[in-house]
């Protein structure tokens, strides 16, 4: 148990970590997508290659008027951005950065992460519903459908790993990955032909693919950014928001991307494990690679249609996820 006096310090550290990581991700996004688009991106704020741009992006909306539409349900409208932001921060509390370096080392870490990150759906529904605008309504309905459809593949992908590692604690999942990279199905002794057959199927890799695909839908980035599809429904649920409240949604989205990158590297790529370099550095490198991957895909893919996304989730990813869970279970039983 952590000493009670340490709790405020830990909270502040986590808060700073969240703000810092979202800022870094925002700067990376601005620079990398500019490179993809054949531009230079921000160059002036902060003097050196626009390093101050994330701060500027954050500070400018503070000066803006906070507009609440006349017909909006004002209390719900005002509280929705906070409800989006808080879970994104809470997720960071249980993410281990290095052995022992974690805000709260709870045994149900994985469960907690999945449960908390799904809360953002509620904020989006609240925003969409309270704005009293048709565009937000369409966007909100899309977002709900999408999050319900894609929470399952994420959970199934995570469950696969939990079954392989036989624990829900994030630190112990990392410890269970003796092989430094993707958790292969079964790294222990194999019994009989069936044991080898099931044991050689890369269940972990399948789960990883599912998890990544569903992550894009979860954070609503291309190719799954339909809820906030700018060319169709303006910015979906966020259409009526302005100033700081809009930035809260924006920040929660970025924090979500960082959190999912961290979870993906913890579950599938051995977290802080790696040769030579210190654990914290390894973890940061892995998270950065995932962050860059998210940005890269976002700015190279067109957007799918909502019905195509649902088809992909319910007809492909979820059956595949269930099969993976079944396969891992059989492997575990045979090779016991």
């Amino acid at each position, binding site marked *: 148990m952590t000493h009670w006096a340490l709790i405020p310090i830990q909270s502040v550290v986590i808060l700073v970590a969240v703000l810092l990581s979202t800022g870094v991700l925002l700067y990376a996004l601005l620079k990398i997508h500019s490179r993809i688009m*054949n531009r230079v991106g921000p160059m002036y704020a902060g003097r050196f290659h626009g390093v101050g741009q994330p701060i500027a992006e954050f500070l400018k909306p503070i000066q803006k008027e906070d507009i609440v539409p006349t017909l909006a349900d004002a209390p*719900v409208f005002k509280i929705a951005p906070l409800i989006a932001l808080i879970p994104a921060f809470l997720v960071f509390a249980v993410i281990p950065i290095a052995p022992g370096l974690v805000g709260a080392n709870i045994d149900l870490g994985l469960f907690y992460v999945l449960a908390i990150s799904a809360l953002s759906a509620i904020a989006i529904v609240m925003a969409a519903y*309270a704005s009293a605008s048709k565009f937000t309504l369409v966007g909100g309905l899309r977002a709900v459908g999408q999050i319900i459809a894609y929470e399952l593949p994420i959970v199934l992908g995570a469950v696969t790993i939990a079954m392989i590692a036989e624990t829900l604690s994030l630190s112990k999942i990392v410890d269970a990955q003796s092989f430094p990279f993707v958790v292969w199905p079964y790294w222990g002794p194999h019994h009989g032909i069936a044991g080898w057959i099931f044991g050689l199927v890369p269940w972990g890799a399948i789960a990883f693919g599912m998890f990544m695909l569903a992550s894009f839908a979860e954070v609503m980035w291309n190719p799954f950014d339909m809820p906030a599809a700018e060319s169709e*429904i303006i910015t979906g649920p966020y259409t009526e928001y302005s100033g700081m409240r809009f930035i809260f949604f924006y920040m929660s989205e970025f924090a979500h991307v960082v959190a999912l990158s961290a979870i993906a590297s913890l579950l599938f790529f051995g977290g802080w494990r790696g040769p030579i370099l210190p654990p914290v550095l390894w973890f940061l490198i892995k998270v950065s690679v995932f962050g860059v991957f998210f940005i890269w895909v976002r*700015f190279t*893919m*067109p957007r799918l*249609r909502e*019905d195509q996304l649902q088809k992909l989730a319910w007809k492909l990813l979820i059956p595949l996820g269930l099969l993976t869970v079944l396969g891992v279970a059989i492997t575990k039983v045979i090779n016991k």
Partner: protein
Amino acid sequence: MTDLQTKGYFTATTERDISTGDMVLNIGPQHPSTHGVLRVVVRLDGERVVEAEPVLGYMHRAFEKLAEQRSPLQNTALFNRLDWISGFCNEVPYCIACEKLAGIEVPKRAQVQRVILFELTRLASHSLVCGVFGLELGALTAPMYGYRDREYALDLLEMVTGQRMHTNWSRIGGVKEDFPEGFYERVPAILEYYRTRVEQWLGFLIDNDVFVERTRGIGVLPQSIALEYGVSGPNLRASGIPMDARKEEEYLGYTDYDFDVPVGEFGDCFDRYVQRVREMWESCNIIEQALDDLGPGPINTGVGRTFKVPAGEIYVRAEGPRGETGYYLISNGGREPYRLKIRTGSFSNISVLPYLLKGIYVPDIVAILGSLDFVVGDVDR
């Protein structure tokens, strides 16, 4: 919203009953997906469009009436603003109309120069559209490539005319000035660049499964419907009808050049996109031949500023990047036209929207709008 008064204006809508009937959604006139101020009123059942109706006129600038007060020189400057993406393509047909009425024989060199600028404008326009169509589908990088590519053609236009978009270069009886020094040296490299771009556009989006999924079979425009609504240009050819005013009409000597009229197969959004990419290739061919064709000679017949168009009526059509551009000119012998009717590609092309938008999903609205490639200035005039 009928009980707005009874319950008081300041009651939140969310506290009242929500009916599950059709929802009328106003897309535009201010909306990020419509290029300019097109308004589409759609009736939605969930995400499915029950009915859609384009509402025009938010950018009506009374060009046909304005033209009646202006001399040909002023009119060409005006018509640049019709379809601002391809300004030069709008001024040339008007000059041709005046020349035909006056019986002026335009020197060969001027004709060829007009062809070169015309096709460069088409290259610029199609590059932009290919990119912007990506944006409609959510590919955020594509428009940047489109804008970049367009700039090479616009550079050439700027070199000749001093303007990127609103060239105002065509005169009655020719063009304003000869090509500047160094122009001929620059063109081949830029044509070569556009050829590589054609391959890029084909690979960049067509090889992308998401793109194909979003455009194949969406917004299919059958040949009979296309002809009924007067659709023209790349949209009509994408439906498989090889109609091209450059092949059918005797103007600018287009019939002397050897180029293909590519046609599509199904007439869906995908075909309309590919159609434009293929036409860029053909434009490169035309410019290459025109450069070889460019012999010495005068570039203008020296018609003065006070030139009066003889009395008469004439209709001239030309193949603009967005379809057939036509000018029906009635002159009573004065400098200004007595009456001028402008037929633009965009207007006829979007008249088919109510047919295309029926029974599709909301995201496909923007895909179809983007693939039809209209400019609101060209629609409303």
